[in-house]
C-alpha cells in the first residue's frame, strides 16, 4: 500500500499555535547573524573586544611581509650598527625603528609582526593536526566501542601522562639527535607542529568520544538506523555535526595553548632559531635584556603574545558559555 499525497486532497493545515512567519531562505552567514550566538556575542562587550584584537593581530600577522618595515628573517637587512636602539619615543630612538631594535639591529616591530605570523602558523597547524587526529580517533573509539575504544583510550591515558612540553621536548630532542644539523627551519616548524599535535589530541578524542556515545544512544540515531543507514554514514552525517560545538571551543583554547607551548619550547632551547624568531624566540632572546634596561626587546613581543593569547582565550570562553545551552 502506498500513500500518494498527490491524490490525497488534504484538509487545510491545522492551526499550529503562533502563526509561522514564512522564513525566506537565508545564507549560512545571514543565519549566523540572526542566531542566538550572534545575539549573545553582541551583548558581550568583552567578546567583541577580544574578537577585534584577534582579528587585528591575525591581520597584522598575515600581512607582515607587506607592512613590516624590514624583513627580520633576511640577515642582509640587519645592520649591527643599529643594534639596541630604544623605541622611537625614547631619548635615543631612531627612525624608522618605531619599537626599537634588538642586539642584532633587528627592527622589533618587524620581528614582532613576523614572529606573530610564525607563532600563529604553528598554533593553527598544531591545532589542525591535533584536531584531525583527535576527532578521527574519538569518532572511531566512540563508534566501534569495545576493544577499539579500550585501546584508543588507554593510549590516551598514556598520552595524558605526558604534558605537551614533555612530549615536544622528547620528540624534538630525539629528532634533533637523529637528524642532527640537517634540520632546517621548516623542518623545525614541522617538528613543533607534530609535537603539539601529538600532545593535544587527547582532549579532542575524549570529548568527541563521549559526545558520540551520548549521541549514539539518542533517538534520532535510532531513527536513522531504522531507515537502514549504515553506521559510518550515521556517524558522519548525523553525529559529527552534533559534536562540533565543543570541538570548536577546545580548538580555540588549544590555539592559545599551542602558541604558549611553542614559546616555552623556545625558552628550553628547542624552539626556532634566533635567526627566524617566533614570538617565543623573541621573548627568550629579549629575556636576557630584562635587567639591562633594554626592556623593549622583550616587552613588545611579550605584549603581543599576551594580547593574542588573552584575546583567543576570551573568545573561547565566551564561545563555551554561548554554546552551553544550560547557561543561556
Amino acid at each position, binding site marked *: *500500500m*502506498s*500513500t500518494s*499525497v*498527490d491524490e*490525497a486532497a*488534504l484538509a487545510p*493545515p*491545522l492551526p*499550529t*499555535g503562533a502563526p*509561522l512567519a*514564512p*522564513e525566506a*531562505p537565508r545564507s549560512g552567514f545571514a543565519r549566523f547573524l540572526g542566531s542566538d550566538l550572534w545575539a549573545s556575542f553582541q551583548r558581550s562587550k568583552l567578546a567583541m573586544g577580544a574578537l577585534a584584537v584577534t582579528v587585528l593581530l591575525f591581520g597584522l600577522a598575515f600581512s607582515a611581509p607587506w607592512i613590516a618595515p624590514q624583513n627580520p628573517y633576511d640577515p642582509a637587512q640587519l645592520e649591527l650598527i643599529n643594534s639596541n636602539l630604544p623605541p622611537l619615543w625614547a631619548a635615543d630612538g631612531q627612525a624608522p625603528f618605531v619599537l626599537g631594535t634588538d642586539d642584532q639591529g633587528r627592527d622589533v616591530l618587524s620581528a614582532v609582526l613576523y614572529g606573530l605570523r610564525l607563532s600563529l602558523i604553528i598554533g593553527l597547524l598544531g591545532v589542525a593536526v591535533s584536531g584531525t587526529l583527535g576527532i578521527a580517533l574519538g569518532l572511531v573509539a566512540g563508534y566501534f566501542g569495545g576493544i577499539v575504544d579500550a585501546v584508543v583510550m588507554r593510549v590516551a591515558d598514556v598520552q595524558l601522562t605526558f604534558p605537551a612540553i614533555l612530549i615536544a621536548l622528547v620528540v624534538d630532542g630525539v629528532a634533533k639527535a637523529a637528524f642532527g644539523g640537517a634540520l632546517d627551519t621548516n623542518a623545525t616548524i614541522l617538528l613543533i607542529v607534530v609535537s603539539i599535535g601529538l600532545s593535544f589530541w587527547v582532549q579532542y578524542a575524549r570529548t568527541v568520544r563521549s559526545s558520540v556515545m551520548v549521541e549514539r544512544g*539518542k*533517538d*534520532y540515531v*535510532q*531513527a*536513522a*538506523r*531504522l*531507515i*537502514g*543507514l549504515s553506521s559510518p554514514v550515521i556517524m558522519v552525517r*548525523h553525529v559529527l*555535526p*552534533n559534536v562540533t560545538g565543543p570541538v570548536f571551543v577546545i580548538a580555540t583554547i588549544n590555539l592559545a595553548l599551542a602558541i604558549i607551548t611553542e614559546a616555552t619550547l623556545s625558552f628550553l632551547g628547542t624552539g626556532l632559531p634566533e635567526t627566524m624568531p617566533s614570538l617565543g624566540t623573541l621573548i627568550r632572546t629579549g629575556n636576557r635584556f630584562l635587567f639591562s634596561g633594554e626592556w623593549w626587546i622583550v616587552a613588545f613581543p611579550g605584549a603581543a603574545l599576551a594580547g593574542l593569547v588573552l584575546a583567543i582565550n576570551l573568545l573561547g570562553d565566551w564561545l563555551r558559555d554561548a554554546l552551553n545551552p544550560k547557561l543561556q
Partner: protein
Amino acid sequence: MSAAAPYVEVDGLRRVFDVSKPWLNRMIERAPRQTLKAVDGVAFSIARGETFALVGESGSGKSTVARMVVGLLPPSGGEVRITGISMTDPRQAAARRRLRARIQMIFQDPYASMNPRWRVGAIVAEPIRAFDLIQGEAAIRARVGALLELVGLHPDDARKYPHAFSGGQRQRIAIARALASEAEFLVGDEPTSALDVSVQAQILNLMRDLQDRLGLTYLFISHNLAVVRHMATRVGVMYLGRLVEVGGGREIFVQPRHPYTRMLLDAVPDLAHIGRSRVPVAGEIPNPIDPPPGCTFNPRCPLANARCRSEVPELRNGVACHAAEEGRLPA
C-alpha cells in the same frame, strides 16, 4: 491478506541482557554471572489496521519488545514475523530490506528523535532518499510539503530547524517522517507521554485519523491506561517481561481478569471519581535481575497462594494467572 494471517506475529520473544559485573569482580567476589530477562516469552499478533497496545509499569519490558519488533534489537529467542517475513531469519534478508520501508517508529521524546542540526525538510526527506522512493529534488520537496500538510503543518516549515517548533509540532514532524517511507506499520513507544494533555489530544486524534485514512497498523506503547483505552483495539498487559493478560480493548478495561490488571486500573485516578481515595496496592515492581519465583506478581498479589509462589502460570485464554484458572477471582 486474509484475516487468518495477522500482519505482525510475535512468538516466544525473549531478550536477556547480561548485567554481570566485570569478569575480575566476579572472580574475586565469587559472584555468578547475572542476567536480566527483560522480555521472557512474549507472544501476540496484530491484525492489519489494528492498534495493539502494550501497557505496564516502568521496566516491564515494553520498549524492549518494541525495539525487537522493529529490528533495532536482536532477540535472544523467539521470532517476529511481519507480513510473514521473519525479522531474524538470515535467509529472508532481501525481503526484509524491502519490508524496512514499511515499518517505522515514533519515539517518546520528539526533540531527541530529530537531528537538531538538520532542517525539518531534510529530516522528513531522509527516509525517502534512503529508500530511494522518489527521484528528483523538486519531487522530493513536493512530497515533503504534502507530508507536512498531512500532519497539519505548513510546507514552508520544511526550512526551519526542529528547535523552532513546539513539542506537539515536533511530534507531528516525527509522524510525517514515519509516513515518508510509505509506512504501513507504526510503532509508537510512548509517543505522547512527553506532551501536555491538550497537545496529546491533538496527536492522538491525528494518529487515529491517519489510521482511518491510510489503513495503518499500530503497535502502541504507553503506561497511561486512559490513553491506551482511548487508542487500542487490543491490549497486552506486561509485568516483569511477561505478558500477563491480552484481550480486546473493552474487555480488559471492563472485565479485567488478572489481579495485576485490576490493580493497575484501580490505581488510575479518574475524573469520574472526584475525591475518592484509591486503594493503592502495596509494593513496587521487584528487581528484574532477581525476580520472585513462580508468578512474578505474587508478592504484591492479594490472591497469591503457594502455587503462585512456585509455579509460573501460562498465558491461557488471554490471561496468565493461577487464580483465574482456578476460578478464585473475586467478581
